[in-house]
């Protein structure tokens, strides 16, 4: 499996990305040395709580960080150039054509006083200098491909005429219109109902396979991650704490934060008299990140060294890394929460049974 994955073409290589915000209270260290790779046609899911730096990381890849943010260091190599060092003029050529983004709230990413059809065909007329008539044809085709019924009628309607799921379909259509190399989805289904979420996820998957676009998918829902991801990066307090293929992270999680995240939500097998594994406390204040492991305060398995020294990324396999002192050879052996162990056991048994036929 891993050999096959390694042969894939690297589209984007982010190294040591560090972003901070200047606020009245001081410097907020939102992203602290994040590295990941994105391969051709693959989906990388970034998981974490709000404030873990996942949105800020991808916003810097789109060049849309707010005014008070500074990229302290790091590189993001894409087609032989560093995205982080681009000027605004260069960004205008990159955005939409090469890197596109879908946001959480489809209502605020569409212009409320402009007809849907114009918002889509704008890409063709403005970016690709197409004549109006051809652009309209292209737009209608695009609307059809993302499953909008009666596109001719819908073309002349405004965003408020559309339901949440339909709006998100429009946003996806716009994002994919000029065949970008990278598609960034920032919690695209969080504001939607489960059945609508299912439809939108299927659509994104379909389009992605068809166009072979590489996707970065941000979410906090692990079920959604399992649905879309080839690779997973778990973020906490501005750092990637665990990184690996979906199988690595879901079937063999090593970081205690990943354990807590996975065990904190009830699944269908959880009995009513079992307690959820809840993390106590709240994420650390990023104005003054704690010394050592940022997760140590909330970590029930924390070692003494966690409070003093930051753990490096330990290599578990060629594709799987985790930043926790528990992986150090001289660390004591600890068990993951039994609720989670049981779930993984069940999943693996199911998988084996399926493989045997």
């Amino acid at each position, binding site marked *: 499996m891993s050999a096959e994955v390694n042969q894939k073409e690297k589209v984007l290589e982010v190294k040591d990305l560090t972003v901070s915000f200047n606020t009245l209270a001081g410097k907020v260290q939102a992203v602290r040395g994040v590295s990941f790779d994105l391969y051709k046609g693959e989906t990388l899911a970034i998981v974490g709580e709000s404030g873990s730096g996942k949105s800020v990381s991808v916003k810097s890849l789109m060049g849309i960080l707010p005014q008070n943010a500074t990229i302290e260091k790091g590189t993001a190599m894409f087609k032989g150039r560093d995205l982080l060092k681009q000027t605004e003029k260069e960004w205008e050529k990159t955005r939409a054509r090469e890197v596109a983004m879908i946001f959480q709230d489809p209502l605020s990413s569409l212009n409320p006083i402009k007809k849907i059809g114009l918002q889509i065909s704008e890409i063709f007329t403005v970016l690709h200098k197409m004549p109006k008539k051809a652009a309209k044809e292209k737009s209608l085709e695009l609307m059809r491909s993302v499953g909008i019924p009666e596109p001719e009628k819908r073309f002349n309607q405004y965003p408020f005429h559309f339901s949440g799921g339909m709006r998100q379909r429009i946003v996806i259509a716009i994002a994919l219109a000029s065949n970008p190399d990278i598609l960034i989805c920032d919690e695209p289904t969080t504001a939607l109902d489960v*059945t609508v979420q*299912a439809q939108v996820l299927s659509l994104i998957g379909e389009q992605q396979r068809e166009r072979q676009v590489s996707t970065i998918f941000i979410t906090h829902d692990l079920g959604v*991650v*399992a649905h879309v991801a080839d690779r997973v990066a778990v973020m906490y307090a501005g750092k990637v704490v665990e990184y690996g293929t979906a199988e690595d992270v879901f079937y063999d999680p090593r970081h205690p934060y990943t354990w807590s995240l996975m065990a904190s939500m*009830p*699944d269908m097998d959880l009995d*009513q008299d079992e307690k959820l*594994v809840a993390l106590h406390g*709240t994420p650390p204040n990023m104005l003054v990140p704690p010394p050592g492991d940022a997760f140590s305060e909330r970590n029930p398995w924390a070692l003494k060294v966690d409070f003093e020294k930051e753990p490096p990324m330990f290599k578990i396999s060629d594709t799987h890394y985790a930043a926790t002192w528990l992986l150090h050879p001289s660390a004591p052996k600890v068990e993951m929460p039994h609720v989670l162990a049981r779930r993984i056991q069940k*999943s693996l048994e199911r998988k084996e049974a399926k493989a045997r036929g």
Partner: protein
Amino acid sequence: MAEKEIVLDVQNLKQYFKSGVGKNKVVVKAVDDVSFQVAKGETFGLVGESGCGKTTTGRTIIRLYKPTSGEIYFNGELISGKLDKEQKRRVHQGIQMIFQDPISSLDPRMTIKEIVGEGLLINKAVKNEEELYARVLKMIKLVGLSEDHLSRYPHEFSGGQRQRIGIARVLATNPSLIIADEPISALDVSIQAQILNLLNDLKREMGLTILFIAHNLSVVKYFCDYIGVMNKGKLVERGTPEEIYENPVHPYTRALLSAIPSPDPDLEKWRGYEVYDPSVHDYSVEKPTMQLVSGSHYVYLSDSEMKTYLNR
């Protein structure tokens, strides 16, 4: 359910909203003929997607809206019509609500002590200042906060802590029914588990009766004794979590269950979902009714549909 003490009994509740006049008149059937009962010490979960009428049901029960028709009985007393002062007091003290948004549901200009104690003062449940303080302190400790939090204001707390304050306020008047409207969905994942554990502990220790309104099916399965699935203002299926999750009968329930992504990449990876198409129901000839499947499991279908779906 016959021997159990029924705290809340909702019968054929309808809540229509009208807007516009003349030929522009629109009637939205937010809640359309919904009946269910909640027994003492039990948790009833109402699930459904946004716009299905679950929140409206909760709000009608707490008398925020005047129902179009139907009856609501609280501890055997009809509370959906005109009430006198004494009856109103009993309802307001007896039914309390936990809201979804812990930021907008707390008055920013009141301290925590005032927020938690307000219900006690209004209901004249305490005789003097000392008693009030003791009771507020007890509540705030119950939800995992401490004495020095009492003099602070809501903006000084995190989302999870604010929801704890909301719960303390609700518990202060010792209500016999709590309506929890999406109490965890505005919170972060790791905080959701904290609040869910807290509610679960309180439920067991204090024997709370809860009407739990949510859209997350795995949370409802974990937390509730009975579940009602709502779609477009109708209660389409109800029963115990086991009955509903192991043998969903109504096509909407099946689609809803199928849409939950499970944290297992091998099982989940780009699988298809079951889709619900309301046009499968042809109710022009045969009208649907609430039909018994087994035990306490009911489903809203017509006779011929029952035959098809049960033999599936």
